[in-house]
């Protein structure tokens, strides 16, 4: 019976590996490379034990605990302790996302597209495809564990021994296995791929949040979260193997639950009932603008929350920086502040430029959505009715410009409010907001450029992402890598004023505004005169 249920699993495993022969290695190498690079960077950044100890002290605050987990080994903050404390949890979340995507793709997504039906019509067992997916999911995570473990110990960094490194990798592997199984269950509950991914990501976020609350309050709540389990292995300090083993064991148990559920249900059915949707459209939906908003609603709201959290997490660090610098007499002497400005205030423009570039991403996505729709032949539905080109692209332009402003405002708000909460002498919220708004024209120039490309060179609109990436590199790393000024000046972000330290340069501000609006208007006009091709 069991063999007939899982007949030809081996062949399906090979088939999945064949389909993902690029995807899986890219994920594995990406996560491993990130880990190795950060470990290597730590040795350069904090060369002496004293510097590491200073770092350990800045970690001793609730915001950091919530973000990266409870500190351990802080009295002797070795490279290993630092790595495990600051990186393990965040990277484990990435491993979780990798596992969720991998499993959802080969279970519910295949089923939804009707490919599963083809497979099931062949002489394969009823559980074979799920079993094969779980095997590949577990296998991928075990390979990741070994890759990271052996790689980390091979770096030969003091305090990062073989056992600790293997446990570090195993923590990733176990977390990945856990979310492999969680997604396998979600794929049985939800009747579509989107729901499967949504449900699994929700579990991942809950695991993260529950752990954050547990770690900050010191209650046992963290024991309800698998991420809490892997973090409690205290890698490189105490090397507890059992929490990792526990996570892996629970993962196997959950996979069994998924198998039982899978065996019980019909193809294409899910255990969560699909509730009927609206039979009538709301008034709000009935225009190209309304449709554009509706299609991006979830994404924009998620980004908006993300930007608020991003601002708040930077803000919470500002407080620590403040306290840290107030206490540290030596630092005060070394860093001579610009006349009339505190160190924090000098730090604001640097933060804002990063925040502004990140806020550009959702705004650009909002305008690029038009191209996505076009490629899927869905703008055709609008153009074949009485919707003009201007009305359709205009809707997306309005959404993108507004989104850019809203994202930047929210990030500034989060930053200002969190900073006010943790600083002894708070900087007024208005200062943060003005500093953020100084970057708005630069952000809009990026959108304007995207609109222009859509209007005149629709096939290469993707270039605007490259330009944003370029901007990030020259502005963020330009100072560090000592790029020539003309190179940085190619980015619009380099021309914004760094409030509150610099004076507001209104000339440049309005010039950027004019460029942004001009490019957008040209793009809109150009869009009237081109072929729509899916």
């Amino acid at each position, binding site marked *: 019976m069991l063999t007939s249920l899982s007949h030809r699993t081996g062949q399906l495993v090979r088939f999945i590996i064949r389909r993902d022969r690029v995807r899986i290695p890219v994920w594995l190498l990406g996560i491993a490379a990130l880990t190795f690079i950060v470990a290597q960077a730590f040795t350069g950044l904090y060369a002496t034990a004293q510097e590491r100890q200073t770092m350990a002290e800045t970690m001793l605050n609730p915001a950091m605990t919530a973000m990266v987990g409870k500190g351990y080994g802080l009295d002797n903050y070795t490279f290993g302790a630092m790595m495990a404390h600051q990186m393990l949890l965040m990277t484990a979340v990435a491993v979780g996302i990798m596992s969720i995507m991998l499993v959802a793709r080969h279970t519910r997504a295949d089923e939804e597209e009707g490919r599963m039906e083809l497979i099931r019509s062949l002489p394969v067992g009823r559980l074979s495809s799920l079993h094969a997916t779980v095997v590949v999911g577990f296998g991928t995570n075990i390979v990741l564990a070994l890759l990271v473990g052996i790689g980390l110990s091979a770096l030969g960094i003091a305090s990062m021994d073989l056992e600790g490194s293997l446990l570090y990798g195993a923590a990733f592997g176990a977390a990945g296995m856990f979310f492999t199984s969680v997604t396998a269950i979600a794929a049985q509950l939800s009747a579509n791929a989107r729901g499967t991914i949504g449900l699994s990501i929700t579990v991942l976020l809950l695991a993260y949040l529950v752990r954050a609350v547990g770690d900050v309050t010191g209650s046992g709540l963290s024991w309800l979260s698998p991420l809490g389990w892997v973090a409690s292995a205290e890698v490189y300090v105490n090397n507890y193997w059992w929490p990792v083993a526990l996570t892996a064991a629970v993962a196997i148990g959950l996979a069994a639950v998924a198998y039982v559920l899978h065996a019980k249900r019909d193809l294409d059915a899910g255990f969560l009932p699909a509730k009927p949707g609206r039979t009538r459209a709301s008034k709000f939906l009935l225009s190209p603008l309304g449709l554009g908003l509706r299609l991006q609603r979830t994404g924009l709201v998620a980004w908006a929350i993300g930007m608020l959290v991003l601002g708040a997490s930077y803000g919470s660090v500002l407080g620590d920086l403040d306290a840290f610098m107030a206490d540290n007499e030596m630092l005060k002497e070394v860093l001579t502040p610009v006349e009339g400005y505190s160190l924090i205030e000098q730090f604001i423009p640097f933060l804002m430029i990063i925040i502004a570039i990140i806020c550009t991403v959702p705004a650009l996505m909002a305008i690029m959505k038009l191209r996505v729709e076009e490629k899927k*032949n869905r703008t*055709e*539905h609008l153009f*074949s*009715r009485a919707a003009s080109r201007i009305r359709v692209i205009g809707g997306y332009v309005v959404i993108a410009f507004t989104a850019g402003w809203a994202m930047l405002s929210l990030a500034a708000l989060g930053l200002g409010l969190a900073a006010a909460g943790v600083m002894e002498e708070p900087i007024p919220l208005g200062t943060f907001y003005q500093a953020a708004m100084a970057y708005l024209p630069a952000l809009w120039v990026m959108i304007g450029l995207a609109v222009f490309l859509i209007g005149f060179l629709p096939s290469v609109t993707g270039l605007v992402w490259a330009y944003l990436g370029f901007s990030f590199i020259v502005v963020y790393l330009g100072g560090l890598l000592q790029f020539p000024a003309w190179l940085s000046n190619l980015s619009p972000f380099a021309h914004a004023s760094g409030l509150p330290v610099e004076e507001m340069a209104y000339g440049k501000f309005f010039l950027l505004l004019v460029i942004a609006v001009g490019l957008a208007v040209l793009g809109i006009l150009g869009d009237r005169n081109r*072929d729509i091709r899916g």
Partner: protein
Amino acid sequence: MTILRTTNLTKSFGSFTALNGINIEVNKGEVYGFIGPNGAGKSTTIRLLLGILKATSGEATIFGRDVWKDAVDIHKRLAYVPGDVNLWPNLTGGEVIDLFVKLRGTANKSRREELIERFDLDPSKKCRTYSKGNRQKVAIISAFSSDADLYILDEPTSGLDPLMELVFQECVMEAKQAGKSVLLSSHILSEVERLCDKVGIIREGRLIETGTLAELRHLTRTSLRVETRLPVPALREMKGVHDLEEDGLGLSFQVDSEELEPVMAVLSAQGIVKLESAPPTLEDLFMRHYEGTGQASQAGSGGVR
């Protein structure tokens, strides 16, 4: 009254000429069948007519206005059903229909309900759960629940079951009776024969045959299967006889419509025992145009005949 007219409509994509001098005329109350193999240029023509693509040269007008410049005004009186309907996965069918109807401007609420009923569509389901046929229904319902004067239908029944195909044909007939015009691009020749007054056949970007069905029938052949008392050796030599096959006394072959009379005279002289004839179909005509190029000659000599 001419509703739709194209004059030497030409479209090139780079060096590739997708359409080459297309002339179409659709009058008020007329159903124009637009047929041709995949990649012949049907959809390109329709996308030009919708102002989604811009013509390289030539002219196209609908309601006497330029399809590119006056697209929005034209579309207020035009309904379109694409052959491959891509919908937004997270909207329901009902929402999409409302959106489409609203975008055109002329809503007919009772008609919407009636059509949803006739096409047996569940409008409360998300589009991601719809099969191809159901997505097609969404487009058809939105098209026919607005009061358009011209319907442009690009292989509208692909994916529909035969019952729904009939409902669709009823809708087209009702529109025609109400004095509306229809441009129907289709693969299904029986559908075109049933619905269309005029037919245009397009191949490799050129309109190779146009006319009313009666006019085109002159170009068709009648399939015959006869048994005669005496053999008819002369038949093989006769003009207009094609694909002759013998089994015993039975003969099956095709005759050009204009050569039917002399052929029948020869047959009846030898004493007809049994006679079956199949009427000339558009399919034969269509297949014959393929045969000429060799591209589809295998399909031509296949099972259909």
